[in-house]
């Protein structure tokens, strides 16, 4: 008796569940986790030159040209910050924290010329970077740690808005740059990231940058993260300061 009731209940529930996924989710055909969220797990990498320069730039010896990733191509520095950026650019060969093998910060970690791996569970999404074994833990649905921390990779708190993963990142130090061209920020940096699977193998990635000590208004960068589909692909190591 009990078993047959269960069977009837299953038949009644299954079509509703399938319908709900198809209708509510927007993007169909995506691989989903057990809790119905788009599954971002996998190994990802950009195909752009944002790490050289976030903005439109011509080629130089050893530097490929690149179309910028900044909306409108303008980074709205305050006058003092613009002067700092100019001096950073002039001293970039030694002043870029990447040359010292420091943790790359956010969002720069995502567009370094190295792959990174997303390990997604319901409560936590971990990002593992080939560059210097960098780690980001994105804790889902919990508030930022109280008080100000000064972390290289910041404090990341995530939530789902429909099928988009939204990550709020605060508590940065002022020691990382956005690129090799000297674009920079202060410890007031606040990053809001949006990760949206546009098909099974591509994530539309957007990062909104807010920092009242450095910029006159928030600005946004956008790019595509591409899934590595090579057979047996895996992260190797770039243990930067061991060389």
């Amino acid at each position: 008796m009990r078993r047959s009731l269960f069977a009837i209940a299953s038949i009644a529930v299954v079509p509703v569940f399938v319908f709900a996924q198809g209708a509510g989710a927007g993007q169909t055909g995506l691989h989903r986790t057990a809790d119905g969220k788009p599954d971002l797990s996998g190994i990802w990498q950009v195909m752009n030159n944002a790490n050289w320069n976030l903005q439109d730039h011509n080629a130089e010896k050893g530097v490929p040209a690149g179309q910028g990733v900044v909306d409108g191509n303008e980074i709205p520095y305050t006058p003092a910050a613009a002067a700092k950026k100019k001096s950073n650019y002039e001293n970039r060969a030694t002043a870029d924290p990447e040359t010292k093998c420091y943790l790359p910060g956010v969002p720069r970690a995502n567009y370094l010329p190295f792959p990174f791996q997303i390990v997604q569970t319901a409560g936590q999404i971990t990002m593992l970077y080939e560059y210097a074994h960098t780690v980001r833990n994105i804790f889902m649905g919990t508030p930022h740690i109280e008080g100000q921390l000064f972390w290289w990779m910041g404090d990341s708190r995530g939530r789902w808005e429909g099928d988009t993963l939204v990550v709020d990142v605060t508590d940065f130090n002022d020691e990382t740059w956005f690129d090799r061209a000297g674009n920079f920020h202060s410890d007031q940096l606040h990053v809001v990231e949006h990760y949206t699977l546009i098909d099974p193998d591509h994530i539309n990635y957007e990062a909104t940058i807010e920092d009242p000590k450095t910029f006159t208004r928030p600005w946004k960068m956008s790019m595509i993260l591409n899934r590595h589909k090579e057979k047996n692909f895996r992260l190797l190591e770039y243990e930067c300061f061991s060389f």
Partner: protein
Amino acid sequence: MRGSLVRSIALAALAVALPFIWPPSLAGQASKNRPMIAGCPSVSAKFHPCALEKAKAFSPSRMPDGTPNLQGIWDAPLAMGFQNIEDFPGDPRPGGFGPAVSVIVDPPDGRVPYQPWARTQRDENIKTYIDPYAQCLPTGVPRQMANFRTRQITQLGNLIAIVNEAGGHIFRVVHMDGRAHLSPTFKLWMGDSIGHWDGNTLVIETTNLNGRWWYDSMGHFASDALKVTERLTLVDADTLHYQATMEDPKVYARPWTMVFPLERIKEKGYEQMEEACHEGDHDAAGFVLGGFRPYPGPRFPQ
């Protein structure tokens, strides 16, 4: 004047370096303070058979795919980052190592079965070189599992991620999809880890290690020919029996095995934090002034 400045800088640097060269006894104290873990004696030689016997009667919680659920954040309360993987009588100097009890269960004498030249090199290592971990270089395997503070295990079915909090930034991705190891060309600090389940035990085979790290602060070492086979078995809901067998025909006379317990952090909402290491490292300069050099890896007899 200038000479005295250099001297005071050197002394200050040595003061910074000392805690790394002669850290206070943690392993010895810990095993004194924790005589029992999961109902078994905490000393490796006794924990090993007792915990495996208990594990036979334990039925672990399972992932949706039916494999044992090892997920969580794990502390290594007795390994304490490995001061010394062998028995150690203690160093009476101020701030010196306290006594340590060997984590090696095979051979039964609790000593690494080095080839004769390699035992000599180990003795040279502590006199000459800086522990690579003290320079913020990755731990390698198995020190990742013994390292200070915690490591988080996350299972996705086709992979298991092991991510540490301490030591800068250290992680391993264990591939569970039956793939083959990387070509021997690749030499990695954390190696290439392939896993499978043997009943309720997670078995991980790691190759492609670069042989540039030490097992502990006391110069115990391997070469790039090392193969590590780890076995992780739940003894109860909150205790893992951790076992690692090392094979390296270039350095050891025979395979050898270490065992220690891992304990679950049960605090609700516990989060691993960021620990930058190299980014704020000023110790390396102190070691160099103290006459120590970066470890270049094993020097094989000619």
